[in-house]
């Protein structure tokens, strides 16, 4: 199945894209997707801290199971205001 992945701010710059489409195995979690992305984009590999995850524009936990066509965002620490 395929999901849409969105990157913002520092992650967007590291990946070099604001949005990609990614093929993943059925039953994959948000955490599985993140690990796959870390292998694919070496600059994501060292990121350890304070990421939040959103699926279809809601914050979710790392163990959330993804569905086909989900929109997934990896949210670095926010700094609005």
């Amino acid at each position, binding site marked *: 199945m395929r999901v849409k992945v969105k990157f913002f701010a520092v992650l967007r710059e590291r990946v070099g894209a604001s949005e990609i489409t990614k093929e993943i195995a059925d039953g994959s979690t948000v955490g599985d997707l993140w690990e796959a992305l870390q292998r694919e984009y070496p600059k994501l590999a*060292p990121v350890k*801290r304070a990421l939040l995850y*959103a699926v279809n524009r809601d914050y979710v936990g790392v163990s959330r199971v993804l569905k086909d066509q989900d929109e997934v965002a990896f*949210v670095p*620490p*926010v*700094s*609005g*205001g």
Partner: protein
Amino acid sequence: MFRVTQKALELQELVTFVNDPTAGAVATFIGTARDHNEGRKVISLEYEAYPEMAERELARLGEEAGRRWKIHRIAIVHRVGAVRIGEPSVIVAVSAAHRQDALEACRYAIEELKKTVPIWKKEFFEGGEVWIGTQSGQPLNLGDKA
């Protein structure tokens, strides 16, 4: 009114939106681009958002404020893109019958916004640029040096 916009923010627009004849109090907070931060001389700021989600989070925040205090209306608008020094980057406006409710809900909204709404600030200072991490005003540290 919960909005992420490229356009310059207009305080009076928000106040006119929240004010109504049954309200006796309007509290506002305006965050503006400051010319210094943590010892750095700031030249300009740039904000990036996950706009659809940010507007949803702003609306949720407004609803939560409405559950906690007796308020009439609340508006939260955040600018994205380049913001020049002195210009507003965010405005919160809250109306209520009584001042305590307006003031407390306004403070709550700006505090929560800084914690949960997917918006990011990049600081352009003399000698470089940096993404700001969390409320501290410190450069973002993702646990690495990449």
